[in-house]
Every structure is written in C-alpha cells, then in structure tokens.
C-alpha cells in the first residue's frame, strides 16, 4: 500500500511518505508522535492537507486527483484504542453492525461470523451487553466487528494498551491468529516493542510526525536508537526457535536457534508446530565477563557486545549471541564490568525466565 500524507496536528505536522507490502505493518513510536492521527486520516476521519493513500491498488485519497472517499467507502476496519463498542447494543448486534456493508452474498470469501467468533473465542459473549464485558473481551469483540465488515485493511490502534500485562499476554495470540487466519493486511499502532517483534513483519518508526526508520522489525531495531524511546517500557526479547525435545521429569524443554545454539526453557509438551516463539525480558538476563560455574541457571551463552545505549542511569546492551539479545543493566554494572562494543560476554539466563508465546 501507498501512504503519502501531510496532516496538520496541534504542535507539528505529520509528514509520511512510504510504500510497503506486508501482512502486519507496525507503526511504532512514543505517545504523542501522531500515530492515532495517521490511522484516523487513513480511515477518512481526519482531514489531510495533501497526500495520497492507496490500499490494494485502490486509491482512497488523492489531493492531486481530488479523490476523497468517505469513511463508508474506504473499506477499512478500524479498532480504536478504547474499542468504541456501541454500548446500547448486544455483542451480536455490535459485531454484525458492519457485516452487511457489501451484502452478505456478494463477497463470499472466507470470512463468516462463525469463523470469526470461533477464532476470537467470543461465542459465549454473543448475547451479552457490551457493558458487561471485561477489557480483554471488549477488545476481541471490537476486533470481530472490524473483521466482519470484510475490510481491505485493518487498523489497530494500540489494542492492548489499556489492558494489564497478564491480559496482554492472553490477547496477543488472538491477534497472531487473526493475522494468520484472515488475509487482511493490518496496520498496527503500538509503543510496545514486544508487540512489534511478535506480530509485525514491517515496522515504520515515527517520532514527532516524522518517519525515522522503516524495515523488517529485527533489522530496524538493531540499527536504530529505538530503545531510547521506550525507557519506561518493559523491553522483551522475542525469538523464533525450533523444538528439539521435552523432558517432563526434568521440567524443561530444549529449543534451537537458527544459528544452532540451543536453549533450555520451561517444560511444555511437544507442539504441533515446529516453529515456536519464546520470550525473555531484557531485565532478566545476567551478564558475566567470565563463564560462571556452579550456578543453577540453565543457559550460559557466549556472545559479543554490539552496542551500549545509556539513558538516565540505565544501559541497554545489544549482544550478539547467535541471535540479537537486548539486556538492560544499570549504568553502574556496565562501568564495573567495563562493557563496551566488542567486549566478549556470557549471557546467563534461568530456564524459567523464558516464556512460550
């Protein structure tokens, strides 16, 4: 899709000029960088000074050709941050609200109410009023409503931001399922690194209305000072690994990186899918400059420091240990060990610090 736009905001102008083709494109940046305004402009809910928007070969806005389709005609499914469910309608009437957009019969496709309801596990909620839903349920219903309007593009505005951490982890897999199950491209706005790494295959990094980087998430995050923006956030490492074997007695499973390095993670039964995603928090990794002995941690992985970013007494290390690991330390620890680019280190990670997604 093509996205070229200039949108006047309160304190600055949002100016974006990109063209990309991805299943999930993440717009990543700190709060107040104009992310929501960009989604509103794509959906036709906010006016732009100039620009051009093209989705799936169809131009929905062009200032030079005087095209400006109404929100009704853009075929964009929008899940705003607050969900915006219609409070006076049942869950069923909410999710069917946009279902007749093009007439049920005209677009057979793969998207049926049954399918969506099943994927998002909301069948038991159908006859409830939306005021009786929890935050996570409401987000799933809002998602179902947008998907059932059979859009050409899904816009998700920080769908997990309002949820607590435990709920986030439960909802994230639903988003992954939507991505894999329905072939609707998504634009996913977030300021959470984990969500970018888990879901997106393309990332647009914006700051104060300007595009500062774009590309494959791992590459972009490797090369930019993205981390300084997320000082307050939990920083997580997300890896795709292959399953090796499991031992219930020992309480652990073995997985392998693409590089061949093996890791121990908490026990889980042999999965159907060979590829798995695992996560570890950047605060849960210990760095040593010598290989330690006689400790309980199941993973001791050699690596090399590729970068050190300091901010407000914290330091974020990028360590190449077959895969790129982010490690967050205090500035004092970095000083004590004399860590700098090129230092050979060992990453010490407890088996139980890893989580399976």
């Amino acid at each position, binding site marked *: 899709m093509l996205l070229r736009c200039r949108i006047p905001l309160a304190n600055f102008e949002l100016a974006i000029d990109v063209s990309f083709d991805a299943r999930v494109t993440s717009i990543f940046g700190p709060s107040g960088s104009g992310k929501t305004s960009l989604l509103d402009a794509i*959906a*036709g*809910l906010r006016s732009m000074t100039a620009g051009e928007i093209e989705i799936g070969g169809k131009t929905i806005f062009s200032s030079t050709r005087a095209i400006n389709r*109404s*929100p*009704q005609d*853009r075929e*964009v*499914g*929008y899940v*705003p941050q*607050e969900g*915006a469910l*219609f*409070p*006076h309608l049942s869950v069923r009437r909410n999710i069917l*609200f*946009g279902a*007749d*957009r*093009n007439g049920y019969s005209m677009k057979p496709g793969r998207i049926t109410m049954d399918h969506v309801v099943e994927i998002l596990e909301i069948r038991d909620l159908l006859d409830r*009023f939306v*005021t009786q839903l929890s935050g996570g349920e409401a987000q799933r219903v809002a998602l179902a*409503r*947008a998907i059932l*309007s059979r859009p050409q593009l899904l816009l998700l505005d920080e769908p997990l931001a309002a949820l607590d951490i435990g709920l986030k982890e439960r909802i994230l897999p639903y988003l992954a399922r939507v991505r894999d199950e329905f072939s609707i491209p998504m634009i996913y706005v977030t300021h959470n690194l984990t969500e970018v790494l888990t879901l997106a295959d393309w990332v647009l990094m914006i700051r104060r209305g300007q595009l500062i980087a774009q590309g494959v998430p791992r590459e972009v995050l490797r090369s930019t000072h993205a981390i300084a923006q997320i000082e307050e956030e939990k920083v997580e490492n997300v890896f795709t690994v292959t399953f090796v074997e499991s031992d219930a007695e020992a309480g652990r499973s073995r997985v392998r990186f693409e590089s061949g390095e093996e890791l121990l993670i908490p026990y889980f039964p042999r999965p159907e899918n060979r590829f798995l995603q695992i996560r570890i928090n950047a605060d849960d990794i210990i760095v040593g400059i010598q290989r330690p002995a006689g400790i309980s941690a199941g993973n001791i992985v050699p690596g090399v420091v590729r970068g050190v970013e300091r901010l407000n007494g914290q330091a974020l290390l990028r360590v190449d240990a077959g895969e790129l690991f982010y490690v967050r330390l205090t500035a004092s620890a970095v000083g004590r060990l004399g860590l700098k680019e090129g230092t050979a280190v060992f990453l010490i990670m407890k088996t139980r610090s890893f989580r399976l997604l």
Partner: protein
Amino acid sequence: MVFFSFETWQITFFSLAVGLASTFLILPFGIALSWLFARKEWPLKSVVETIVLLPLVMPPVSTGLILLKIFGRRSPVGQWLYDRGVEIVFNWKGVLIAMAVMSFPLLVRSVRTSFAEVNPRLEQIAATLGASTLRIVFVITIPLAYRGIIAGALLAFSRALGEFGATILLAGNIPGKTQTLSLAIFNFVQLGKDREAYMLLGITVFLAFAFVWSSEWLLRSGKAV
C-alpha cells in the same frame, strides 16, 4: 353526583390533547435541528440558534403578537393559508401553534445537550463500518440520546400545558373552543368562580406531579442500560 363538571372535563381533555399534539408536532423538527446544532457547522448557525431560543426569553405575549402578525389573515402567510382553507387565528390550531413555538426551545436545548454527550468516536467508527449518516443517526445517536429526548419531550409538554401569553393573543380565550387549563383558571378567577378555579388548579398540580414523577422514574430506570 358528578365530581367534575362537563366543562372541567372538556377543558382538561382539550389541553392535554393539544399539548400532546404540539409535542409530537415539534419532536421530529426538534430532533433534526438539535442534530444539526450538535454535529454540523453551517453558515448563520448561531443566528438560527438564537432565533430558536428567543421564545424562551421573550415575553410570551410578544411572541404571541409576532405569531398573530404572521398568521393573521392580513399577512401573506395567513392569506396563503386562508386561501387553502386553513385558519390559524382564534381556533384550536392557534393554540397548537402557540404551544409548539413556546415549547420548542426547551425541547431543542435538552435534545441538543444529549446529542453532544454521545461520543462522536462511536459515530465515526460506525461510518468506517459502512453505515450511512441516516443509519448512524437512527441506530447510534438517537438511541444513545433517548433519555435526553424523552426528558426534553416531557419538558416541552409541560411547558405547552402551562402556555398562556402567546395562546391568548393568537387563539383568544374562547370557552369550548380555545380555552386551555391556564386560560380557564384565569377566566374563572376573573369571574369570581373560585370553586371552578380551584378544581382546575388541583388538576394542574396533579398533572405536574405525574409528569415530574414519571420523568424521574424514566431517567432512573434508564440507568440500567
């Protein structure tokens, strides 16, 4: 013995019937105009808003005089209507017009506020889901604002029943033809018929009580939704 005289019944029924008709007459216009006020920007909007609110602050008698000038047979409007067999002045239609004009601002104020309280985000999202403006208004905006609409209608109805100044100018005070509760009370007091006046007074108190009580009950029960 019949507790209320035929005359009392007639006056009460006439007031309620015309008041109700007036309320239903202004409801669609009031809702449409309130929506235009709350949701759209257009030229001269503030002028129109002011004109709509005028009857609320002007002396009702002045409003009545203006209406008399507009609908009197010597005005173009009155003449036009008369040619088509419609006469407004000094009959029940005059009462209806006076009630409608006087209660309209109360309806608009209440409905407009309740429209403004509906989260515009819900309407925007409805639009992205393909809903036309008309569908959004009828399926999202009005249902979410219904409490304000009912409250506004009750307020307008009450105001219509209490109408005096504009009615007496436009429709006169003709027993059995244009005499409403308010006009009749005034008339009976003037004639020294205190018993009849108090009887009607009792009816107005009862009606007022019933309205206030039922509107409060409606608002409370609405909370559950």
